[in-house]
């Protein structure tokens, strides 16, 4: 697709954040992905033009990182953590359940374009295992049943809340967030959930606290 002038203005906004323009490349790739749902040849060309790089230089970067997709993902890109900390605690079972239910495998998209699946590695949420993500928002402490429920709801356009974050929005919308464009959702969801508070709660129950400075 041909990008609008608006996209180029945003790209220049990103470039202006950095002392050296090339540092803007990763967020710019998130930006073009937020417009197209993947990184196309046109998206690569836009980054190259704005940064004075060759398309080969940009493609070399775009293909290194797993979050950049060279073909469209679903409106809701679902990650299932299969790293042992989650996989053993139930992630592997969730993965096979979702594959069977949706009839797709890793890096594949349902026919209606709604859901894609990815086997993901550690999401830094092992205390909330098994963990899934929907467009990278946390879905913590999942079971095969709750996983199916989430994808069915997303497929049929119903609202799904992240367990530590906002209502699940589209893949493109979240890519714009990662490019650094504020979405006004900072206050969504809890500040800290039960697992994050487990130690503080226990300390209070036992009357424990850090000593005051003298």
């Amino acid at each position: 697709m041909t990008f609008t002038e608006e996209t180029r203005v945003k790209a220049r906004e990103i470039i202006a954040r950095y002392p050296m323009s090339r540092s803007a490349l990763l967020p710019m790739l998130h930006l073009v992905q937020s417009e197209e749902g993947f990184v196309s040849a046109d998206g690569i060309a836009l980054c190259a033009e704005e940064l004075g790089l060759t398309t080969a230089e940009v493609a070399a970067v775009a293909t290194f990182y797993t979050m950049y997709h060279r073909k469209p993902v679903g409106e809701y890109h679902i990650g299932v953590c299969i790293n042992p900390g989650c996989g053993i605690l139930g992630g592997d079972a969730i993965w096979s359940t979702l594959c069977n239910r949706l009839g797709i495998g890793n890096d594949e998209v349902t026919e209606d374009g709604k859901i894609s699946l990815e086997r993901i590695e550690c999401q830094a949420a092992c205390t909330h295992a098994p963990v899934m993500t929907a467009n990278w928002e946390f879905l913590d402490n999942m079971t095969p049943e709750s996983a199916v429920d989430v994808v069915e709801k997303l497929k049929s356009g119903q609202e799904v809340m992240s367990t530590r974050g906002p209502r699940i929005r589209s893949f493109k919308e979240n890519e714009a967030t990662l490019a650094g464009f504020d979405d006004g959702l900072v206050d969504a969801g809890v500040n800290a959930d039960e697992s994050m508070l487990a130690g503080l709660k226990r300390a209070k129950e036992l009357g424990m606290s850090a000593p005051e400075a003298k």
Partner: protein
Amino acid sequence: MAIAQGSLTPVLSAHWDEADSYTIGAYMRHGGYTAFKKAFQQGPDQIITTVKDSGLRGRGGAGFPTGLKWSFVPQGDGKPHYLVVNADESEPGACKDIPLMLANPHALIEGIIIASFAMRANHAFIYLRGEVPHVFRRVNNAIREAYQAGYLGKNIMGSGFDLEVVLHAGAGAYICGEETALLDSLEGRRGQPRLKPPFPAVAGLYASPSCVNNVETIANIPYIVNNGVDWFRSFGTEKSPGFKLFAVSGHVNRPGIYEAPLGITMRELLEHAGGVRNGHKVKFWLPGGSSVPMLTPEHLDTPMTYEAISEAGSMLGTGTPMVFDETTSVVRAVTGWLAFYKHESCGKCTPCREGTYWISDVLHRFEEGHGTEDDIDKLVEICQQISGRSFCALGDAASTPFPAALKYFRDEFLQATRTPANETYSPEKATVFAGVAR
């Protein structure tokens, strides 16, 4: 008064039970943004001395003394300096920086102000892994609030000190947690490690003197500056002073964040976390990520310090213990971790690129029940060929899980020359929803 052994001591996490804990208002209600003003009065050299004297060690995994790292940044060289915060938390088992940034991002921002002031950096970057948009929102909001309060930007509080802070999202690459790969990635390149020397302190970001520090490390700084070296050293041991966000995960009844002095034992942490899930017992545990050797129940009384865990044959790493009970197949776990390292190897150096492929391939044979005794020797040899011979620590990490598992569970690998792991150990029984009515 000395802190009683086994205590929990919430500092970074002390106010997470207040719903607005991530806002500047909450942070300031509890004394936030007073430390950087003290730092401005004391001057950069005094801050570096304080951090050195505190004995604070890097919380990202390597445990390098933070003040010493700062002091490597040459001063008066006329070049721009950069502070880069490593917020690329991706180590399997590590899940403490992400909660910290969700619930208390201002401790990080104030730490950045003080650290940048100390090393005379006028530009700081937070390199956050891309897969956490809600953390991005919380940290970006904290930066915005700090600018609005006049704590970031030009001539902060009339001090003459300028600081710009930029939040930067990565895009899915574990290797970018390696500091030189992170710098290449932040420069808009493939995230591959650099040959050292030169070290980042001499030629880091944009070939300028730079310092890369972990999130939790930097978040400690305001508390150290505010409360002093003696206070900080009242936690932990001589060689491992301070407190730590221990993220306890796996087969425990109450997985979560437990903030305690370094030196608490795993048995004490387990008790706080409600013990191993009911009716089960510990089979093996990893003190700080999949990149450190596993330990067994006999090591549960080891103090969680850099020195004691090292003595026990492992490493404290990220200080985020993962606990697995007797329903877990060690063959399956190790095969899973090696699939991870194979996936994340950046491909730059041959030992890691080829070696992770081969270890992973041979381990799959065991998982499927047709490894051979010769394969065990082969794996030992491949691990020896990678360790110490790869470009960065990822190769060393990849050659860690198997030898450690073999040391304690050789019989299980022998069993896996005949029987698939999933037959010896039912995967269903190891899940958290096993036997739970659904």
